[in-house]
C-alpha cells in the first residue's frame, strides 16, 4: 500500500504541473466560448502557430524561447483581433454554424500554411530547461520545464483575472458577455469588444504555444490535439471563471498521468477522457461553472 502511494507522487506532481499547461491552452477557448459564444475550432492551430512564430524568432535571435514572448504575444494579439474583426464578426448572428465553419476553415488554412512554410518535420523550441530536472527533498524529481509551464500559466491567469476586474475594457468584456444588448446601451460596441476578447485569447494562445513548444515536439498538424485538450479543459472546468478553467486543466492533467501510471502510457489520453465523460455525466455544465 505504501509503495503504491510512494509511486504515485511523481505522476501526481507531474500531472498537476502539466495540468497548468493544459489550463493555459484551454483558457483562450473558454474565453471566446463564454464571451462571443463561438466555438473556436482554430484555437489549437493558433497555439501551434505561436509555437512556429517563436521557432522563427529563436532561429533569428537565438534567445531563450520565453524571451520570444515579447514579440509572439503582440503578434498573436494582432492576429486574434484581425480574425475576429474581419472574419468571425461578419458571420455572427442567431445561427451558430457560420462562425463554426469560419473557424474550421481557418484551422485548415493555418495547418496547410504551416505545412507549406515549415515542412512536416518535427520541431521543438530548444532550451536548456527541457532536459533539466529539479530534485525535491531527495524523493521527488520535477522536470524544470513542467515547473516553468505551471508558473507561467498561473501568473498569466492571475494577470488575466486582474485585467478582467480592474480595467474598463475587462469589465466591458464581462458586461457584454452577461448581456450584449444592455452593454450596447451603455456605449459598448459589442463587435469591437469581441475583437478585443479574441485578441486577448490570441495572447494566451501565444503563451500556450511557446510553452507547448518548449515542452513537446510539434508539427503543422498538432493543433487539433491541443484543441481537444482545450475542449477537455472547458468541459471539466466549466465556463464562468478563469480559475475554474485553470483547475479544469489541473484535473485533466492529473487524470492523464495518474491513469497512465496505473494502466500504462498508452492509456494516458483515454484516462483523461474517462474523467471528462464522468464530469459530463454528473455535472454537464462543468465542475466550476457559475450560474
Amino acid at each position: 500500500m505504501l509503495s503504491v502511494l510512494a509511486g504515485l507522487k511523481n505522476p501526481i506532481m507531474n500531472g498537476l504541473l502539466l495540468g497548468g499547461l493544459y489550463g493555459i491552452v484551454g483558457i483562450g477557448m473558454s474565453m471566446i466560448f463564454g464571451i462571443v459564444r463561438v466555438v473556436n475550432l482554430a484555437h489549437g492551430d493558433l497555439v501551434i502557430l505561436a509555437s512556429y512564430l517563436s521557432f522563427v524568432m529563436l532561429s533569428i535571435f537565438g534567445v531563450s524561447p520565453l524571451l520570444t514572448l515579447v514579440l509572439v504575444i503582440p503578434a498573436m494579439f494582432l492576429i486574434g483581433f484581425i480574425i475576429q474583426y474581419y472574419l468571425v464578426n461578419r458571420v455572427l448572428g442567431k445561427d451558430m454554424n457560420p462562425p463554426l465553419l469560419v473557424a474550421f476553415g481557418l484551422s485548415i488554412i493555418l495547418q496547410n500554411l504551416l505545412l507549406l512554410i515549415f515542412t512536416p518535420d518535427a520541431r521543438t523550441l530548444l532550451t536548456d530547461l527541457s532536459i533539466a530536472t529539479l530534485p525535491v527533498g531527495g524523493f521527488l524529481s520535477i522536470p524544470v520545464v513542467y515547473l516553468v509551464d505551471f508558473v507561467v500559466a498561473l501568473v498569466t491567469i492571475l494577470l488575466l483575472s486582474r485585467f478582467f476586474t480592474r480595467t474598463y475594457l475587462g469589465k466591458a468584456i464581462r458586461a457584454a458577455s452577461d448581456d450584449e444588448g444592455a452593454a450596447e446601451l451603455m456605449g459598448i460596441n459589442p463587435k469591437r469588444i469581441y475583437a478585443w476578447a479574441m485578441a486577448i485569447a490570441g495572447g494566451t494562445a501565444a503563451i500556450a504555444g511557446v510553452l507547448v513548444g518548449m515542452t513537446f515536439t510539434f508539427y503543422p498538424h498538432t493543433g487539433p490535439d491541443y484543441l481537444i485538450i482545450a475542449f477537455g479543459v472547458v468541459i471539466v472546468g466549466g465556463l464562468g471563471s478563469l480559475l475554474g478553467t485553470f483547475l479544469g486543466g489541473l484535473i485533466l492533467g492529473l487524470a492523464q498521468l495518474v491513469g497512465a501510471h496505473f494502466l500504462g502510457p498508452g492509456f494516458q489520453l483515454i484516462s483523461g477522457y474517462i474523467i471528462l465523460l464522468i464530469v459530463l455525466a454528473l455535472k454537464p455544465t462543468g465542475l466550476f461553472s457559475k450560474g
Partner: protein
Amino acid sequence: MGKSILRVDKVDVHYGDFRALWDVSLDVEEAQVVSIIGANGAGKSTLLNTIAGVKKPSRGTVQFKGKTINGVAPYQTVVEGISLVPEGRRVFPRLTVLENLEIGSYTPKARRRKREALSKIYELFPILDERKYQLSSTLSGGEQQMLAIGRALMSWPQLILFDELSLGLAPVVIKQIYQKVKQINVDGITVLLVEQDIQRSLKAAHKVYVMQSGRIRLEGRPETLSQEEIREAYFGLGGLNAKDPSGKDPLKG
C-alpha cells in the same frame, strides 16, 4: 413653451413583415416628463427602442437636439445624450453594483466625470453605496431597478428613457422610485417614460401620449384629458365597454 429636445416624425417600424409602429409622431420638450401609456403590445417599448437606436425605423425620422439619429447604433445614441433604462432592468448579474455603475460611464466623456456621477447617484440611491461590492444578482427587484436607473445616469444623459419602470415592483417601491424620477427631472434631465400604470404616469407627466395597436391615439396635458378620452384611446374602437386583455381596469391600476 420650452424647446423641443426630441422629435419623432411619422415613424414606421417593422419586425420582419409585422408592422409594429404606424406613422408615430412625438414631440418632447426639454426638461419635461413625458409618458407614453398603452396596453401590452401597443408598441410603447418599440418606440423607446427606436429612439435609443435598438430598432431602426423603416420610414420617418428621429431627431434629437435637431440632429437626425435614426439608424444610429445604441452605443452611439448614448454618446449623443440618450440613456435607456430597459424593460426588466437588465443589470449585469455577474458584475458588482459598482462595476455595473462603472460600465454606465463607459463612454470617454462620461469616464472623465465618473467620480462626480458616482457621488450624485449614491446621494440619490444610498442603498447602492451600501451594496456597491455586492453582485448585482443578489439585489432585490427594487434595488435592481435603482441600479439600472443609476447605471443609465452614469453617462450624463440629457434624455432618459424608462421602459416599464414599475413592472414587477411592490407599490411602496414604485412610489419611492417615482419620487426619484421626479428628482432626476428637477435636476434638468428630460424624462420619457413608458408605463402600464396609468394613474401613476398621469400624475408624474407634463404630457401624455396614449398608444394603441402601434399608433398614437391621443396626446395632451394630463389635466386637459378626460378619463373617457383616455379609456377610449387606450382600448381603441368600442371604447367604453371594452376590457383590457388582463381583465383589469387600467384606470384603477
